[in-house]
């Protein structure tokens, strides 16, 4: 085993590498959810959107090369785009349905998880076997070390960098632009937004669709970068954890970034320990992100007051 060569150092290195590789889906989904929730709606269905994104990106990347004579350098990028579009399609359903009278957006989210995963598994069945071209990565490790372990650990995807840049951009968008102000107004006080002449329905529709676009991109990362294949277990609740993560990040895009990195790291604990030969409690370590999410929710929520930063109309039916 190559990891034996660096021994116990492999654990922190593995966790660092896991953070760099594994946090991007959390980041995209949580930013998407942050945008959605800022407008006052919850989209629990991003888990299904993530799966749809992963499946469509992988399928397009594979079909692009094998059927449509695309270059393997281009087809995965088309896949990313299509994943975003697939996400928008899912978002459209959610946005329309969750704004009907007396329809609860959480219930719609549950339905969209079932529908999205069903559709992704159905359409993705033929793509479980074949190997699709992957997105390229920046080889950061090559500059720092000659050790192949370090090199393979420190690969950074351009999508991840895009996500990292998106967080401050979204923060600026909310704080300093007119559309950002409209979204916050719609989320905090729909009546005030209406008085400003903003269409609450339209703003929410756009926010949900844009948020789902981001979640679709997150899915593309799963299947085209890391873990880098299409299987039915690829997301395993990451979309859902990202929703909880937004609460932890207090609806602040910058904090979504820190929280995503934290979760990416937590997810890597189990595999990193296994790599140095500790596989006792492997499944328990793999449950770490879920336990962590739960703990964070227990610590940050309070029955006494609403959370600081929470959009005022969040969770109220047709608020």
């Amino acid at each position, binding site marked *: 085993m190559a990891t034996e060569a660096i021994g116990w150092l492999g654990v922190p290195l593995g966790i660092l590498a896991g953070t760099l590789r594994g946090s991007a889906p959390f980041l995209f989904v949580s930013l998407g959810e942050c945008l959605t929730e800022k407008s006052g709606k919850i989209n629990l269905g991003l888990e299904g959107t993530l799966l749809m994104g992963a499946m469509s990106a992988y399928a397009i990347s594979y079909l692009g090369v094998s059927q449509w004579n695309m270059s393997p350098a281009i087809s995965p990028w088309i896949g990313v785009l299509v994943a975003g579009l697939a996400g928008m399609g899912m978002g459209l359903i959610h946005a329309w349905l969750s704004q009907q009278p007396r*329809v609860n957006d959480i219930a719609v989210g549950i*339905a969209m998880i079932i529908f999205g*995963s069903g559709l992704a598994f159905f359409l993705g069945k033929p793509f479980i076997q074949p190997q699709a071209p992957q997105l390229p990565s920046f080889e950061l490790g090559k500059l720092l070390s000659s050790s192949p372990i370090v090199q393979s650990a420190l690969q950074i995807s351009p999508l991840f960098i895009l996500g990292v840049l998106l967080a401050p951009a979204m923060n600026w968008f909310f704080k300093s632009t007119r559309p950002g102000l409209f979204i916050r107004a719609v989320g905090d006080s729909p009546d005030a937004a209406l008085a400003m002449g903003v269409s609450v329905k339209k703003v929410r529709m756009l926010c949900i669709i844009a948020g789902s676009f981001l979640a679709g991109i997150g899915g593309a990362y799963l299947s085209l970068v890391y873990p880098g294949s299409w299987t039915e277990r690829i997301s*395993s609740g990451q979309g859902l954890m990202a929703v909880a993560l937004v609460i932890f990040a207090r609806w602040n895009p910058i904090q979504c970034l820190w929280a995503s990195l934290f979760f990416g790291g937590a997810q890597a604990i189990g595999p990193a320990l296994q790599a140095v030969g500790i596989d006792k409690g492997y499944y328990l370590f793999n449950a770490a992100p879920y336990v962590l999410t739960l703990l964070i929710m227990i610590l940050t*929520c309070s029955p006494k007051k609403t959370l600081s930063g929470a959009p005022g109309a969040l969770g109220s039916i047709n608020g």
Partner: protein
Amino acid sequence: MMMLKTTTWRKTAEAIAIPIGALLVALMLFGIFCAFCGKNPLAVYGLIYSSAFGNWRVFQGTLLRAAPLMLTALCTALPARLGLMIIGNEGALVVGGVAAVITGLVLSYGSVTPSAEQLQQVLAIPPILVQLGMALGSIVAGGLWIAAVGALRHYRAVNETISSLLMNYIAIALMNHLVGGPIKDPGETIKASSFVLPDINRLANLPTTRIHYGLLYGIIVCVIAYFLIQHTTFGFAARTAGGNIKAARIAGLPVGKLTVMICFLAGSCAGLAGMVEVAAVHGRVNESLVAGYGYTGILVAFVARYNPIACTIVSILLGGILASSGALQRNLTMPDATALVFQGLVFLVILYSDSLYGRLQIFKDPGPKAAVPPAASTTIPA
């Protein structure tokens, strides 16, 4: 008096017609989806019917799948009456199944990991007591699992939907951990599993059928749940708190206690489903226990509009869809996810149909009172 009667009649007609209409619309959308995939929708419908409800032999398979669904559906349906949306059904089922196998093995062999000699000799405890012990173990384990969600909701305001869904993943990880180590059967090499329960202590089939007693469990528990919610003070208190939590607090109802108790009952139902699956179908605990009954149970609860009696009927309908999934794979080469797509469509259409209540002209009371919007009555003269 006469007017009141027509109103309730119309309400009942509406409550029956809208879900059925929604199911038909979902079926139609599913047909369109099949047509897009190059399958003849009529052939698909025909195959679903013939492989789920066509004759007594296949209908037994449908009922087998309906049994755990009735129980897991209650895990969503009961808390929904309190205004909570809990979707930890799958987790509670898994925890219940693990607890059932542990109690079952201890009561059968005296140990969770019996030695070769212990395996030779099943303890002389009557099977009915062993089964009772297993049921009790699963009820307590599943109940506590969801009661924790309820307690977190009440005392820490943790969103119960997200926490219960996270608990599903934790439950499955816990089960994988246990069957991979502490309760592993070293003789089983293909799939990490617990030891197998002795045949004598497993749930038997109803006479002359291949349906196990779990179906009776499901129906009985649904009927009990119905009476509990509709015809007891406890149920009345829960429904009051679900309707208006502030009013319930002012009336002095112990909202926290109600929340935890209802959640315990909900979890115990799903836990019992785990026991049924383990004691009647699998005989042991392994990955096969995670078969999606929990998620389908959520859908059953929604379609049944949280009514426990309606849950039994809807379970049979959806059990049929699950039962026909194998035939769709074999005869029409449709992937196993077809059932999931159909369930998703049903779910979405049912949710949309919720917005139709009171909007359809046919079900509107022609009397003048119906024209007054309820909002107007909230203005109280000073």
